[in-house]
C-alpha cells in the first residue's frame, strides 16, 4: 500500500512540474507575440508619419511641376495634339500663370459626360447652369491616365487637380423690365471688393427685326462697386421682357474676376455648342432635342457672336455666323468657326437663338476656361483613400484669379516594408 502511495506522489509531482513548464513556455510565447506586435505597431506609426511627410513634399513638387511648365509642345492647349510633357503654364508668360486653353482640354472628372449620337462621340462636360456649356470630345480631351504617365506617377500616386476662381461676381436680377435692374456683388475669399472697377456688356436679343435670324443689341459700360462691394445697374431701354446676357469683369489691383447672368424667354428648344476642333477654332452647334431627346422639336434660328475682353478691359463683340437648326437624322448640326485673328485669345461664344418673335434665348460657351471663370476638376476621386495630402497655389488664368489645389494620395499601400 505504501509503495502505491509513493508512486502516486511521484506521478503527481511529475505532472505538476510539466504543467508548470508548459504554462511558462506558453506565457513566454505569448509575451513574445505581444512584444512583437506592440513594437511593430509603434514602428508602423513612425514609418507612416514619414510616408505622409514624403507625400506632402511630393504633392508640393508635383503641383509646381504642373503649374510652372507649359508642357511639350508648349502650345498643346491651342492644338489638337496629345502633349508628350504635361504642364499648364501659359507659354507666353512665366510664374504661376496658366493657359486657359490647356485647362479647357482637361477631361472633367465631375460633370456627367454627354453622348451625342449624331457624331457618335462622348463629350467631357462642364455645365454651369442652363445655357453655359463647355463640351469637349473625349478624342480631343486629355485624360487622367495619360497625364499620370506624363507626370511619371502612373500606378504609384493618384491625384486630383481643382482650379477654382477666387473672386466671386454674383449678379441678381432685381427688376426684369422697365427698367431692367441688376445688382452686382463682387467678393474675394470671405470679404467684399470695395471700389472695384467693373466693365460690363449687356447683349439683348431684339424682338423681331433682323429677318429670320435673332438680331441683338450690345451695350457696354463701366462702373465701380461701393464699400460693400456691390453696385446697382439700371437699363432703362429694356421696356419689355427680353432675353439677354449680362457679362461683367471686376478688377481691383491685380485681382480680377468675372460673372455673367442670362435671362431667356424660351428654353423649350435651344442651341448646344460642342468643341469640334481646337486648332481651327471650330465649334459644332446642335439642336437641344437631338442631344437630350426631350423638350421642343421646333426649329430654331441662331446668331453667333464672339465676345473678347480687350487689353484696355473693355468688351468687344465680333459677329461670327448665323443660320437655323432642326433636329433629325443624318447631320443635323452646323459649324461655327471663331475668326483666325481672335481665336488665339480667350473669349466667349454668345449664341442667341429664336423660335418665334417672343420666344428667344441665349447660350454661352467659353473659349478658354477663364472667359466665363469656369472651374475645372481633373483627375481621380480622393474619396475613400487612406491618406490624402493637398497643396494650393494662387494662380492667374488670363488675368482671372484662381486657386489651384492638388490632392495627392499613394497607390502603393502603407506597410512598414514598402512594396517592391
Amino acid at each position, binding site marked *: 500500500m505504501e509503495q502505491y502511495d509513493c508512486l502516486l506522489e511521484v506521478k503527481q509531482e511529475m505532472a505538476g*512540474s510539466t504543467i508548470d513548464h508548459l504554462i511558462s513556455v506558453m506565457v513566454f*510565447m505569448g509575451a513574445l507575440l505581444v512584444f512583437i506586435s506592440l513594437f511593430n505597431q509603434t514602428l508602423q506609426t513612425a514609418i507612416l508619419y514619414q510616408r505622409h*511627410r514624403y507625400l506632402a513634399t511630393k504633392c508640393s513638387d508635383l503641383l509646381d511641376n504642373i503649374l510652372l511648365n507649359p508642357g511639350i509642345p508648349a502650345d498643346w492647349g491651342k492644338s489638337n495634339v496629345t502633349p*508628350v*510633357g504635361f504642364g499648364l503654364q501659359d507659354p507666353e508668360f512665366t510664374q504661376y500663370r496658366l493657359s486657359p486653353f490647356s485647362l479647357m482640354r482637361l477631361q472633367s472628372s465631375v460633370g456627367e459626360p454627354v453622348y451625342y449620337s449624331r457624331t457618335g462621340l462622348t463629350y467631357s462636360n462642364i455645365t454651369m447652369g442652363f445655357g453655359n456649356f463647355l463640351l469637349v470630345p473625349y478624342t480631343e480631351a486629355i485624360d487622367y491616365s495619360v497625364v499620370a*504617365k506624363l507626370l*511619371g506617377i502612373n500606378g504609384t500616386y493618384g491625384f486630383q487637380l481643382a482650379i477654382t476662381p477666387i473672386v466671386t461676381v454674383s449678379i441678381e436680377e432685381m427688376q426684369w423690365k422697365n427698367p431692367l435692374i441688376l445688382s452686382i456683388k463682387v467678393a474675394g475669399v470671405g470679404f467684399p471688393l470695395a471700389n472695384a472697377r467693373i466693365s460690363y456688356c449687356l447683349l439683348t436679343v431684339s424682338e423681331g427685326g433682323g429677318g429670320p435670324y435673332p438680331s441683338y443689341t450690345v451695350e457696354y459700360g463701366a462702373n465701380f462697386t461701393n464699400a460693400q462691394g456691390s453696385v446697382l445697374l439700371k437699363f432703362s431701354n429694356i421696356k419689355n421682357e427680353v432675353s439677354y446676357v449680362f457679362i461683367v469683369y471686376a478688377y481691383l489691383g491685380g485681382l480680377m474676376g468675372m460673372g455673367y447672368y442670362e435671362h431667356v424667354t424660351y428654353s423649350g428648344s435651344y442651341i448646344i455648342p460642342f468643341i469640334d476642333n481646337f486648332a481651327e477654332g471650330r465649334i459644332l452647334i446642335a439642336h437641344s432635342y437631338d442631344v437630350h431627346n426631350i423638350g421642343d422639336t421646333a426649329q430654331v434660328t441662331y446668331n453667333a457672336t464672339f465676345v473678347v475682353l480687350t487689353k484696355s478691359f473693355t468688351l468687344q463683340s465680333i459677329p461670327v455666323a448665323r443660320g437655323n437648326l432642326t433636329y433629325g437624322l443624318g447631320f443635323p448640326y452646323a459649324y461655327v468657326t471663331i475668326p483666325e485673328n481672335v481665336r488665339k485669345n480667350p473669349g466667349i461664344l454668345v449664341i442667341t437663338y429664336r423660335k418665334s418673335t417672343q420666344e428667344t434665348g441665349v447660350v454661352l460657351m467659353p473659349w478658354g476656361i477663364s472667359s466665363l471663370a469656369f472651374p475645372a476638376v481633373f483627375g481621380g476621386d480622393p474619396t475613400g483613400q487612406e491618406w490624402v495630402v493637398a497643396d494650393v497655389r494662387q494662380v492667374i488664368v488670363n488675368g482671372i484669379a484662381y486657386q489651384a489645389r492638388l490632392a495627392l494620395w499613394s497607390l502603393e499601400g502603407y506597410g512598414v516594408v514598402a512594396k517592391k
Partner: protein
Amino acid sequence: MAHITIEYIIMLPVLILQILLFPLAASWLMNVWVDSRRTLALQEVASHIGSSIQQVYFALNHATVTAKIVTQKVDVPPFIENYPYTGNATLKSVLDPELNSSKVLEITFRLVGVGTTVKTMVILGGNVVWRESTFVSNSTNACITAEKFANGTIRLSFGG
C-alpha cells in the same frame, strides 16, 4: 528521473531560446524600420531633386530664354542619418508611343556606406542632353547645372 530529463533537457533550451528570441525580434524589427526610414528619406530627396531638374529644364526651355547657363542649389540635406549620398543619371529615349519624342532622365541615388538605393524618373523634352556627372550631397558645390545653347539644346548636369 525521466520527467526531470524532459524538463531540463528539452524545456529549458526552449525557454532559453525564447529569451534569445526577444532581442532577435527586436533587432529584426529595428533593422526593418531603419531601412524603411532611410529609404524614404532618400526617396524624398531623390523626388525633390528630380522635380527641381524638371523645373530648371522647363524654365530654360521657355521661348524667351536664349543661350544661358543656370546653376540651381537644391534644398536637400547633405546627410541622411550621418551618411552622405550620391546621385547618377542616365538619359533614355522613351519607347512608350504616348510619350513619343520626349526623354526620360533616370536618376539613381545611393546612400554611401549603407548601400540603400532609390530611383526617380523625370520626363523632359527631346532637346535635352545629359552630361555625365555625379551629385555628391556633402560637397559644397552640390547643385544642378543647366546650359541652353543657341540651337535650343539644353544640357543638364550635376555640380559637385
